[in-house]
């Protein structure tokens, strides 16, 4: 899920396709995020530049990457992703080193599970009242 800033769009596309990812975190040698490059970034670039394959990732990536920490809460992350229209949140430790990534899909899944769980729990209790 990571790529070196000097690798090319060709490398990025290959990695995205191989792992079925929607974005790659661009990290420096200390494994700290310095940017993010998504399929959307590449699609936009392709629309104006057909010779995109050998362009280095750091010329295309989004540089002001928003990162999360382990203690971040689902609700806050959902709001931030919705408001800032981001689909990938790299997670870093206290040193700023990348430890994972949360995707919009992960958030939707977690929200769905919470919702389903609450509905199921409430339904069980209501049915118990009727019995």
């Amino acid at each position, binding site marked *: 899920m990571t790529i070196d800033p000097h690798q090319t769009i060709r490398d990025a596309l290959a990695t995205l396709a191989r792992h079925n990812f929607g974005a790659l975190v661009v990290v420096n040698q200390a494994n700290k995020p310095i940017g993010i490059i998504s399929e959307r970034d590449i699609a936009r670039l392709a629309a104006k530049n057909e010779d995109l394959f050998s362009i280095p990732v750091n010329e295309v990536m989004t540089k002001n990457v*928003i*990162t*999360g*920490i382990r*203690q*971040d*809460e689902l*609700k*806050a*992350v959902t*709001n*931030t992703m919705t*408001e800032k229209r981001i689909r990938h*949140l790299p997670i870093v430790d206290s040193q700023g080193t990348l430890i994972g990534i949360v995707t919009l899909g992960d958030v939707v899944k977690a929200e*769905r*599970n*919470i919702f*389903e*769980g*609450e*509905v*199921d*729990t409430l339904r*069980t*209790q209501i*049915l*118990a*009242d009727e*019995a």
Partner: protein
Amino acid sequence: MSQPGSETNPLRVAIIGAGPTGFYTADHLFKQKDVVVEVDMFDRLPTPFGLVRLGVAPDHQKIKSVTKAFNRTAGRPKFRFYGYVELGKDIMLEDLRRHYHQIIYTTGAQSDRKMGIPGEDLPGSHPATEFVAWYNGHPDYRDYRFDLSQESVAVVGIGNVAMDVARILSSAPEELAKTDIADYALEALSQSAIKEIYILGRRGPAQAKFTNPEIKELGELADADISVLPEEAKLDSLSKAALEAGQDRAMMKNVEILQEYASREPAGKRRKLTMRFLVSPVELIGNEEDGVTAMRLVRNELYATEAGTLRPRATDQFEEISVGLVFRSVGYRGKPLPGVPFNDSWGVILNQTGRVLNPDTQQPVVGEYTAGWIKRGPSGVIGTNKPDALETVTCMLKDLAKGLTLTPADPAVEAVEKLVQERQPNFFSYADWLKLDEIEVARGKELGRPRLKFTCVEDMLAALGR
């Protein structure tokens, strides 16, 4: 040999842990139309239902009604329960590999996180979970003692468990007498000298996770006046903004209720229940002989992380409250199981969407799975474990379809029965549990209580005439 899952060669699954997730897992497996599954469920305790029996507060009986659904699952002809059979003690991982195609660990989050402050281990300072297990009649905790002759107690944390503990400590004996609280706990709590109960939250009212009914309950106790400091009930600008952005109605209602508590005049009840916000314990003061005598608190302020979470940050303002008993409830984590890869920093079994991973290769360990709190950490309500178990069961079925299962040397039902008989002759079957259940309910009925629990294994065996 043909792929397991047929009438003649059923898929044999061992579920470790008979809590809600174990039952949800069994239920999902039994619902498969094209796969014949036999489920054997093991638990280290004689009784099933995990935290529904031993964690959910005794005055929250309605939540426990979920066991009716579990009973339906257990009534399936291909379900077996082996209670009082512990993995790593009575039965080993090698045994399971010998008898099952798939093993799934659903053991929950059994240990608590520490506060990491000086004085934490003084007498009188306890994990809230131990108190919960004690008042719920957990056989391993029935002999624990908590000094209820103290007048002042602090509960650290404002999650479900902290709220339960504070409410049980504040309740009148008549209120508790209507519940299925352990009889020894009912007696001890009836003698309790506690007058002042603090609940300490490190963040503000708008970050509290409790539900509206939970916070309302605290305002309706017969024996305790609730109080909130007006300056702590007031929202800071970050919380206000987050509340407006999130439009979370339950959260807004919580704040409204807490602000009403802040403006309440005490009615002169026997006890006082004080909810504090934006404070963290930094030290428990006392000595080995007298135990805890006071707690030093630091006031916090909130800041927003990049992703928008409001987190507490200590200021330079301190205060001291005098308390003789402390219960901490600042988070939970799973306990490692013998031979099962564990992610120590997260307190969960190392896994990906429920497939246990080999720590060296990060590849799935064939035939081993996990679900529930030991898979994802303690979050959500009981029902949240249902979709979580489904995710794991989906992986189990996909792997089965690819032929990725264990190849047990002896998958016969009888072989397991014989093994368990040898290793733990006192094991409890589901029929045994149903009989115990009936006796408990009958004993409770005489006293006007939902049930009178058996709290030690000898009594359970005796009740079954063994």
